[in-house]
């Protein structure tokens, strides 16, 4: 066998007492897709940051084609042909889509000047390749783009630069199946071109579909490195978690409680004439493609967006428009999909983030009580199996999955009637995922909550929901019962009918 493109020896990274990565020796070859799997906090992203020179290893070395390298800067890693697509996509809001994609590689005319026409032409071509031409314009400003669109920009940024090794850190966590499919085509093409690919995902089906080899991390250590040939999701799970998992979606009886939430003809800037109802103990799933307006629907219900028409009622009492405080007081909780920008206070500790919505429970006489807060949160975080050195640690020191658990902790601390979860398992590992599913069960079955789950992962959507609504173009297009809902049916309803026709002519299917 030839020398691998990249080889690490004893790669180790500690953050103070936290041993994020220990002694990793791993090879990555050109023309191969290496899947890197592991639970939340297993050290996958840390490994990528080491490879890209974001920070140096505590110990150990990296070799490229047999030569040892030390990257002080991502720039140096790029020069060596390494590119990483980061788990949390970053964009420059005030620049155009084109400039965002080509940051660092802007095309020149002469020595100094930016070649605008080439920039736009290249971007248009790239968008075409990625099937994003309908969704993004090269000259569009990036402010206001959703996570999926940002994720695609991040992917295009790395892929267009043409590295010899490209690492994808959970690229699909906010993508729908359609976009995922297109991304896979691109990854396969890269592999055919001899590029070394590292692929990180918590969606194990993707791993079995795409990978040539699977490396498993557990608690910062490499526990296995084996060919993907014949590997199953169960086996990966066992290696990751170290134990078998029970059935993710056990059968259950559909809920029969009273209606707790009713939305009647709600129209906001982003959604049109939406009506739905949710019973106590029921899980209502909402499916649809990216940009269908699901998040916007949730934000409308929660009072983050103003309603221009329609009503939202909790237990028959109408909520004022555009008032999140009233929504919370009435018992609605909302975990947004965009953790970093919409859910977490990045400068604050885990504890402070967790108690944000329950001031009355952690205070006496208007003053904060640390002991009450600790008492309340310690229990919930244990139940959530939150991995943290201390509740006083900054929330940014957590891995992506554990950050999501903090957000859920926040809502579990509060007394809810309705919980809206927008992509609740985005970036969450199988183990934690099944914990979150159990938790949702527990909330509906024993506490009688109504839960709305927005998810782009069809198995999850179908497995969890008692009823599924499908949205497209800001409207509800279809409704399915648990037994009618199938992946095919949901997909068919989700695709906007006839892209060129005026959408107003197509009234919703099953309202």
């Amino acid at each position, binding site marked *: 066998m030839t020398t691998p493109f990249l080889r690490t020896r004893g790669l180790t990274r500690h953050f103070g*007492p*936290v*041993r*994020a990565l220990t002694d990793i020796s791993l090879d990555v070859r050109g023309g191969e897709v290496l899947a890197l799997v592991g639970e939340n*906090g297993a*050290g996958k992203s840390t490994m990528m940051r080491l490879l890209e020179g974001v920070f140096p290893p505590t110990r150990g070395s990296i070799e490229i084609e047999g030569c040892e390298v030390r990257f002080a800067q991502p720039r140096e890693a790029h020069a060596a042909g390494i590119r990483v697509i980061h788990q949390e996509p970053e964009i420059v809001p005030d620049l155009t889509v084109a400039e965002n994609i080509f940051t660092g590689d802007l095309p020149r005319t002469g020595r100094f000047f930016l070649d605008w026409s080439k920039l736009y032409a290249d971007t248009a071509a790239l968008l075409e390749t990625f099937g994003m031409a309908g969704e993004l314009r090269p000259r569009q400003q990036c402010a206001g783009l959703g996570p999926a669109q940002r994720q695609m920009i991040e992917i295009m940024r790395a892929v267009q630069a043409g590295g010899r090794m490209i690492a994808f850190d959970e690229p699909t966590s906010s993508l729908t199946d359609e976009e995922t499919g297109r991304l896979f085509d691109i990854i396969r093409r890269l592999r055919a071109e001899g590029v070394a690919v590292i692929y990180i995902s918590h969606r194990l089906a993707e791993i079995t579909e795409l990978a040539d080899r699977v490396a498993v991390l557990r*608690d*910062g250590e490499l526990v296995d490195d084996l060919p993907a040939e014949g590997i199953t999701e169960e086996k990966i799970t066992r290696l990751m978690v170290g134990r078998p998992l029970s059935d993710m979606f056990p059968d259950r009886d559909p809920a029969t409680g009273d209606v707790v939430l009713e939305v009647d003809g709600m129209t906001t800037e982003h959604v049109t004439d939406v009506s739905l109802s949710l019973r106590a103990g029921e899980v209502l799933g909402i499916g649809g493609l990216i940009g269908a307006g699901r998040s916007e629907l949730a934000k409308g219900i*929660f009072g*983050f967006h103003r309603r221009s028409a329609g009503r939202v009622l909790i237990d028959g009492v109408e909520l004022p428009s555009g008032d*999140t*405080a009233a*929504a*919370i*007081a009435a018992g609605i909780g*909302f975990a*947004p999909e965009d953790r970093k*920008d*919409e*859910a*977490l*206070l*990045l*400068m*604050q500790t*885990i*504890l*402070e983030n967790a108690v*944000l*919505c329950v*001031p009355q429970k952690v*205070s006496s006489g*208007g*003053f*904060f009580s640390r002991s009450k807060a*600790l008492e309340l949160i*310690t229990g919930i*975080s*244990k139940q959530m*199996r*939150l*991995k*943290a*050195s*201390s*509740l*006083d640690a900054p929330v940014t020191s957590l891995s992506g999955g554990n950050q999501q658990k903090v957000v859920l902790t*926040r809502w579990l601390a509060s007394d809810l009637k309705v919980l809206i979860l927008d992509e609740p398992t985005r970036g969450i590992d199988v183990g934690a995922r099944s914990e979150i599913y159990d938790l949702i069960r527990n909330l509906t079955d024993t506490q009688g909550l109504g839960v709305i789950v927005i998810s782009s992962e069809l198995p999850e959507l179908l497995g969890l929901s008692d009823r599924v609504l499908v949205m497209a173009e800001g409207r509800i297009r279809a409704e399915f019962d648990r037994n009618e809902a199938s992946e095919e049916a949901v997909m068919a309803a989700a695709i906007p009918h006839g892209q060129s026709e005026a959408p107003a002519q197509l009234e919703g299917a099953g309202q």
Partner: protein
Amino acid sequence: MTDQTASAGRGGFSMHRVIERIGIHNISLLVALVGLLVIFGVLRGDVFFSTRNLLNIGMGVAILGVLAISQTGVIVSGGLDISVGSIVGLTTVATAMAIQATDMAGAGLLAGIVVGGLAGLVNGLLITYGRINAVIVTLGTMAIFRGIAFILSNGQSISIFNDAFRWIGTGRILGLPAPIWILIAVAIGFYIFMHKSIVGRNYYAIGGNPIVARLSGLNIPSYRVAIYIVSGIMAGVGGILLAARTGSGQPISGSDGLELEAITAAFLGGCAMQGGRGTVVGALLGVAIIGVLNNGMILTAVPTFYQMLAKGTLLILAVFLAEYRLNKS
């Protein structure tokens, strides 16, 4: 990775806890402050540590202290109030006019507080409901409030002869001058408010990430307006102190550039430009450093031009050391 599941490090070694409580940044400021004390103590030990001189230092920063603390609140909330210097000037005029009209100290106090609060309300409404950047609004009202002060006073200073009022600037209780008591009261009040009360703590959320704050049910507009009103009232307190100390109301002298000093002290004290960070103790330490430096340079007779050099260098050095220690830990 450790396997600890969150249980919030009760017990454990206490030195670490102490540092964590005071805050690394504050410790650096403390080190800088002690450094200055040592330097001036060595150079002018004969007078520097005399009670009288220490009180002078306290008196010298009383007004700045009040403003730096309330500015910290504004910056934590994600805003900035550049108009405070002008509000101080305006309230000295309002206070002096009220006393001239009534010869009652109470009227002066009331005028200062009310005018300050109103000025803050104007800022708050423009920023919150006009949706205009706080820097722009308060740069604008800085000029507006000063203009109003000049128009009211016709640019002249207005003398205050009321002894009860003048006492606020000069009187003593238990040996401590009244302005220092006021500073202490403001500091304790803000400390409790910002760090202990639920409402105060929410400002950290609002400044840290307004979207998260809204999705957590905080009514951001009212919070915003409130903090500018508070800032205005505190500027009013500053104006009252200034009027009482100088025995006059005057639109500019004493208030010009005060906002920059207050903002400097707040940043020195650990505030972050983008909001969500900053402490009352940090602001006080920042103010103490400025006060000790001003006093020490007079005592050691540093020539004017070198004072500028020294102040600029100190500001940079203090923050540099602070950040350096912060990064090391």
